[in-house]
């Protein structure tokens, strides 16, 4: 005879299993299987037509890590992450601290700063391609005003990446600002009032109360920013298409240009697998270290 406790436990698991099946099926079909397939294809020289037949072992990976453009695109991703974490996020936090209070005009600025994020990434990139145009763009107009000949930043291999980083900064700082504002507004009014009574000025309040209480939000925003930077693709395509001379590729645009466009599906799969492993490594590492305290609180 089974005990009532066992029955309860079993019925609990049944419920979990029943609820898990649909999600697990979809996850397996659309996430696990494609990753497994990509890993399999990455060992073949295959142009995507018919079935892969030419097994080449680790040659695709070997070629990848010796490829100058891939190493460069890895570096570019690193720059994008660095700019996102060390420039974009602090700036978003600063603005959030300035306009999170319910002051006159705050809502207006919030909307203005958030607007770029609403634009589709392709649209953003196209708009900026016009802005950067050395003949007719805003840059040309500004330079022209001072009587100088405008540079073509997107065609200049020293400046093209900087130009892309500016667009990324402009486009995404708004969403991080919104996340911080939401976090700041969740801080209890009593705490802030108590600080005020104790004589804390706005800077002390920001550094001693608001930012420390915002740490979980900041961790989340850092995480989103990290993964977003690794996935960057659609801003690069219309702006430079990875050029000039392939100096502005991200790992994903590299995958597209060198895998998909060249019909090297086996090689492209190898790039995909490497990107996946990097993302996985960062995600797990992040969860295990920085997010650990939050996870422990939850479970």
């Amino acid at each position, binding site marked *: 005879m089974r005990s009532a406790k066992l029955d309860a436990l079993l019925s609990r698991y049944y419920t979990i299993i029943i609820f898990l099946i649909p999600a697990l099926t979809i996850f397996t079909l659309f996430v696990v299987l494609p990753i497994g397939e990509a890993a399999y294809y990455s060992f073949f020289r295959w142009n995507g*037509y018919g079935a892969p037949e030419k097994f080449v072992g680790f040659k695709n990976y070997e070629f990848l890590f010796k490829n100058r453009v891939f190493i460069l695109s890895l570096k570019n991703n690193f720059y994008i992450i660095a700019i996102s974490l060390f420039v974009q996020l602090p700036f978003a936090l600063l603005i959030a601290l300035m306009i999170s209070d319910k002051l006159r005009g705050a809502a207006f600025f919030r909307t203005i700063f958030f607007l770029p994020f609403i634009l589709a990434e392709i649209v953003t990139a196209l708009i900026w391609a016009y802005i950067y145009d050395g003949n007719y763009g805003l840059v040309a107009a500004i330079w022209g005003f001072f009587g100088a000949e405008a540079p*073509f*930043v997107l*065609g*200049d291999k020293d400046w093209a990446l900087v130009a892309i980083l500016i667009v990324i900064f402009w486009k995404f700082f708004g969403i991080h600002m919104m996340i911080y504002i939401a976090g700041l507004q969740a801080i209890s009014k009593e705490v802030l009032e108590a600080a005020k009574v104790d004589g804390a000025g706005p800077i002390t309040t920001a550094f001693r109360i608001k930012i420390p209480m915002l740490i979980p939000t900041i961790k989340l925003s850092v995480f989103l920013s990290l993964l977003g930077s690794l996935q960057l693709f659609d801003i690069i395509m219309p702006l430079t298409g990875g*050029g000039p001379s392939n100096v502005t590729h991200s790992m994903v645009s590299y995958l597209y*240009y060198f895998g998909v466009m060249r019909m090297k599906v086996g090689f492209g799969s190898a790039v995909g697998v490497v990107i996946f492993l990097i993302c996985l490594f960062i995600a797990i590492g992040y969860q295990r270290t920085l997010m650990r305290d939050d996870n422990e609180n939850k479970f």
Partner: protein
Amino acid sequence: MKLLLKIFFSLTFLTFYSSANADTIKWLHLFGEDSSQYPNMVRAAEEFEAKTGHTVVMQYLENESFKAKLPTMLQSNDRPDIFYSWSGGVMYDQAKAGFLRDISDVVPDSYLDTVSAAAADAFTFEGQRVGLPLQVSQVAWWYNKDLINQAGVDVSNIKEWDDLISAVKQIQAAGITPICMGGKDKWPVHFLWTHLHIRNGGKDLFLESLNNGGWDRPEYLKSGEQMLELVALEPFQKGFLAHTWPDQAGFFGDGKCAMALMGNWMYGSQKSNSASGEGLGDDNMGMFNMPMTSGGLGDAGDTLGGINGWLFSSSAPDSAVEFMMHYVSLDIQKEDAANGAYIPIVKGADVSLTNPFLQQVAQNISNSEYHQIFYDQFLGADIGRVVNDVSTDLAAGIITPEEATQAVQEAWEFNQ
């Protein structure tokens, strides 16, 4: 009542029967509504629909999107029956993988007799006919007469590469941008490097390299050195690496530079992409062939260009081939030739060419003993794109001729 039922069933059967025999032919192309061949494409489709009861569905994709999307489309159930092709390596890959239909049985000899044999042969693979040709094209130097005269250059003196270099210097000295270039799209730049290959190496070395490798041989290194000699003069418009092919055509049409190395489609594109929509007039435009290089193994009459046409996907019905034979026919090609849309491949259609530039190109190609299809198409998607990349890197001055040829050789080895 019985009679009514009989009529009902007969009608249903008839409708079913006729619709079961009417094919929907999906035709994927890259000609926008403002292109000069578009009206006759529509006309051919309408005529064919009226004659046969089949339906022709035209699908348009822009050039770059077309190339990017096609491999996926061919493997889906939504694949087109007929699609555009530059023949060469990309077509061979598609044929090897079984994505093309062998249409030998559907195309009668009587039809093949009407088209240029060389053009029709470009659309065969291992004895199978997989497509039909539409047009041929040639890459040449286009120039703006006003600007060239202003600089005091006489193009009839440009016989050798060194003459071209001198002309560029002269144009530059007159304060004019010598060459328009669409560096962002890369393929416009590869014309420069690969046309030098054709002059320096000729047909035999090309075939030797294609079959046995050797893309890093001295003749090809020389092309890189010559290109760097030109690049050192900074002959392209400012920011050329950020400009696309339509920008290049527009700048030329707007008279912002003196020359451009481009296929004969430049004629129409410089008009449609110019700010005014008018471009340069016929009397203000000229063309000359890529000059010879000293000691080059090629012939001055060898041409670089395309043989473009239509391929049939593995599931294409016979009617798709019949439709294409209706479209690529004397009547329509004559009219397109008269409109200056392209250089036709149906025999006898070229007499309708009234455009002096297209007439000249048609003449060049028919005189040429070696018409090399664009490298980036002929060598397949992979090696072709490497050629485009390194050509652009040479134009940007960031790689050496050795690195450029080595990269192509490595790509060739990687594909063996």
